[in-house]
């Protein structure tokens, strides 16, 4: 039974839909259209703004890169094996998604302090977490990693293990097979994972602001300008950051729609 225009109930559902779309779109449209083109242009030429956006991109990219390097083998393990407690491991992977953002910062600071062994190790190696780019990358990896892991795992799961079996029987070792067959076939899912991980990382604020107010990533700069100069001065920076996020989002949509269609 499909909903048709003949039913009064249809109009109720449609009204709710329009209210929701307005609730989501109106604030964004108003925010984007509030600053004039001149102000937007001026903002993007502001050295502080450029630096913060660049830092956001750079740290989010680094988080995605780290996720790919240590996440890809683990995602493959999860896709190709079953073991008791797998549900628990998958739950642990999702924990960073649901922890309140300032708490993520507090938790990461907890292990970086001198009264914790890991903190002392970092200190001895000269690695500073608090107020450093290293710290920002660590935070962004923490919040972005689950998204990469889940996307990559799904990608590996969807590849028939038979293709790997055939490759093995034709003489390729496990590692050869992974690089010649598995990875090329999973590239779209891996790309989706990278985009999701970066998008999540770029939008993070609460965890970063605990670890590193300076150097300022873009969301922190927006907050700083809002606090010190008011709404009008934070809007143009927000517009540029939103554009960046929507670009990533668009890329993600195109990638996933393609994947659905070819599946």
């Amino acid at each position, binding site marked *: 039974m499909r909903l048709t225009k003949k039913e009064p109930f249809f109009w109720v559902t449609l009204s709710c839909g329009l209210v929701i779309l307005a609730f989501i779109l109106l604030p964004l449209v108003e925010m984007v259209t509030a600053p004039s083109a001149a102000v937007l242009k001026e903002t993007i030429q502001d050295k502080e703004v450029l630096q913060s956006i660049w830092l956001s991109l750079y740290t989010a990219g680094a988080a995605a890169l780290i996720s790919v390097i240590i996440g890809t083998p683990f995602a493959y393990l999860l896709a190709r094996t079953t073991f008791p407690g797998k549900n628990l491991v998958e739950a642990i992977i999702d924990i960073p998604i649901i922890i309140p953002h300032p708490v993520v910062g507090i938790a990461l600071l907890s292990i970086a302090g001198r009264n914790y062994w890991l903190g002392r190790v970092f200190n001895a190696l000269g690695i500073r977490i608090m107020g450093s780019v290293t710290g920002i990358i660590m935070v962004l990896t923490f919040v972005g990693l689950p998204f990469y892991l889940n996307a990559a795992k799904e990608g590996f799961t969807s590849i028939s293990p038979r293709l790997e*079996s055939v*490759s093995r*029987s034709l003489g390729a070792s496990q590692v050869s097979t992974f690089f010649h067959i598995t990875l090329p076939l999973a590239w779209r899912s891996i790309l989706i994972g990278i985009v999701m991980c970066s998008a999540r990382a770029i939008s993070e604020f609460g965890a970063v602001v605990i670890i590193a107010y300076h150097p300022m990533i873009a969301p922190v700069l927006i907050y700083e300008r809002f606090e010190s100069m008011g709404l009008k001065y934070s809007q143009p920076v927000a517009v540029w950051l939103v554009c960046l996020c929507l670009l990533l989002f668009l890329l993600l949509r195109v990638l996933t729609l393609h994947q659905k269609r070819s599946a």
Partner: protein
Amino acid sequence: MISIRNLAVNLGQFQLTDITLDIKENEFFVLMGPTGAGKSVLLEAIAGLVTVSSGSIKLGTQEISNLPPEKRGISIVYQDYALFPHLTVQKNIFYGLRFHRSSRDNSVSRIRNLIDILALEPLLGRFPGTLSGGEQQRVALARALAIDPAVLLLDEPLAALDPRFREDLRQHLKTLHQNTLTTFFMVTHDFAEAIALAGRAAVMNHGCLEQVGTIREIFQQPASPFVADFVGMKNLYAARFSGTLAIIDGISLELGHPSASSTGYVAIRPEDIVLSQEPLVSSIQNSLNGTVKAVQPLGFHYEIEILVKNLPFKVLITKQALFDLQLHEGSETVVSFKATAVHQLAGAPA
């Protein structure tokens, strides 16, 4: 060539037990059995794709059961082709070559020959996704034979094909088998394929081998009730023998010849039984009155279950016969079959 001794595989809910089997060099061997019998598991155990829990698999004199799959020199072709979708046909076929350090010139000319036999020349630049099922399976065959394997394992290679292309591919399999020294080991559930291709065969059920022998032996002298059922003898009864009669629950069937043993099984194919309204006056030597218990459609035909006293007979009839006889649950009918249609199973005790 392949000699398997007391092989066991344990996959949790499913296991293979005590598989012992010998396959000769360059033989075309067929493994038959119902879905879930474990045919594919045995195939993957030979290829090294599932872990063997005990027993041995030898290829010639070399024990291979602990080698990784890439060291065995055994190729596998699946029902769903399993072509690498991101590689062209050419790259699929040549995929295995880089891992085999045989003299390259010789390999290339051999593969050229395979491409000729399988008529793949015009497809070389295309991607698997653009090919028909028959074309894909020809590519899969070429890819598997390209590395000149000692054994080629085929897991129901024709099952997913459109019936129009099956005959063509069956012909190709025959040609390839004649043109190479490779031993072919094929899993199927289609008897016609076994008849067309194989010399010897085995029937598998519940993870065990039920019978190993020539196709003719399996078809004419099934070694067990299961094999009898599998080769289409759906009416299977435990019987006592007396003179030329088989006696089942008080019903006597004429065998046409005296029996050697006093108890055992007899089997009758459903298509060997004739139904009629009145007893037939003819050379048919068994004629019994019964009642229709169930009518079940089977595509082109109907399987009718008939109770003669308490003995059920399954009979296969055409749509036309169903219509002419106006059969339905409760109809009275006459079941007739020749004495030669009553098969005594070889040495099966009651």
